[in-house]
């Protein structure tokens, strides 16, 4: 058995992305070191060239996925999942992603409308956001942050990879 094959087998069979630390611990008996693992991962990435799947690094680890070009066909497998979200949900998610941690009050101040509990529940059910604490103001409102699963589901490794917000020339946005 050679290392890249074993790593490929692990990543293909894992329901969740696996990061380097997890892979090294799965391969502890074989005494694989980090350098060898990284070389194996690099090789597996190259092996995907010209193939319908790709190996990507997202938040949480490495994941094999079918390339975007094939979504017209693959999405036919999941006709019920349209994957369309309302503007209200996307705007709420955007406020949390770009301004985290935020309370519902913060979201309402930015969007100018009440935040529906349904939207918050949907975002929590998708595990895209979670409560990370409470703001020390009267009522102790919950503070929301996005999760690693949010990043992974949007094909991102870190928050810094989010598309930049349009420039804020006049710096009126304090605090």
């Amino acid at each position: 058995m050679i290392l890249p094959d074993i790593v490929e087998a692990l990543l293909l069979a894992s329901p969740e992305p696996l990061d380097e630390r997890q892979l090294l611990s799965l391969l502890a008996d074989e005494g694989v070191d980090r350098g060898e693992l990284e070389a194996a991962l690099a090789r597996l990435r190259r092996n995907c060239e010209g193939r319908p799947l790709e190996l990507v690094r997202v938040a949480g680890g490495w994941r094999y996925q079918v390339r975007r070009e094939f979504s017209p066909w693959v999405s036919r497998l999941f006709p019920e999942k349209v994957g369309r979200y309302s503007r209200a949900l996307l705007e709420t998610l955007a406020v949390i992603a770009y301004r985290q941690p935020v309370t519902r009050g913060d979201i309402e101040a930015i969007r100018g409308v009440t935040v529906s509990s349904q939207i918050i529940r949907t975002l929590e059910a998708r595990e895209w956001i979670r409560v990370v604490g409470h703001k020390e103001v009267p009522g102790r409102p919950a503070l929301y942050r996005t999760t690693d699963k949010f990043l992974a589901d949007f094909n991102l490794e870190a928050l810094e990879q989010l598309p930049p917000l349009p420039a804020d020339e006049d710096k009126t946005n304090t605090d």
Partner: protein
Amino acid sequence: MTGAVVAKVRGTPLHEFPENLYIPPDALRVVLEETFEGPLDLLLYLIQRRNLDIMAVSVTEVTEQYLGYIAVMERLRIELAAEYLLMAALLAEIKSRLLLPKPAEEEDAEEDPRAQLVRRLKEYERIKQAAVELDGLPRLGRDLFPVLLTADLPPRTPNLPKVTVDQLADAFRQVLVRAERGRSHAVPRESLSVRARMVRLLESLGHGKPVAFERLFDPGEGRAGLVVTFLALLELCREGRIEVLQREPLAPIQVQLR
């Protein structure tokens, strides 16, 4: 705008918003509820329709238009979300300030509501844009699909719990200790609980009517409890406090106070 459906009114698509203030009355509610994400969004639309920069916008003009919408809504008695009315009040205030000469010393007293509004509009515009871009990112389940393969694993021998001989010896010691404890305290405790059970039985028979024999037993108590109840019944019989009746062979047995 032309081409894209901006709203549907009873199934008929509207391809653009009518110029000026006229919106078919039926459409107004739909437009406000489904096309705009609130008053900031409506204001942004009014500004962008003129292709203007937020900073350069004539507040007076936008305010006129916004208040115009609100006035139509009120005339049509369409219930408006509170946020729209709040914005109308803010705009009315800004407009009134612009009409009045500004006293110089009030400059720094509070933030100019116009500047505040512009700041909110810009922040909202940024988030609105960010939401569009977020939606444009390749998303798992819509554009990208995770590969999750079945693995051909040999059948596993079930991983049964392991027990050592010491654990077994330990378990038996515990049984013996418990049995011993049970024996030494058995007599006093048992007689006490029979006494108490007799009192309870008398209470549950207190209303004088006969009660089915089985109803006096609670199977949930377990064996010991059932035995105590039975002993209590025998004791009450012996003392002549209750009588046990059976109308004919195999008929239900009944118990009542004597």
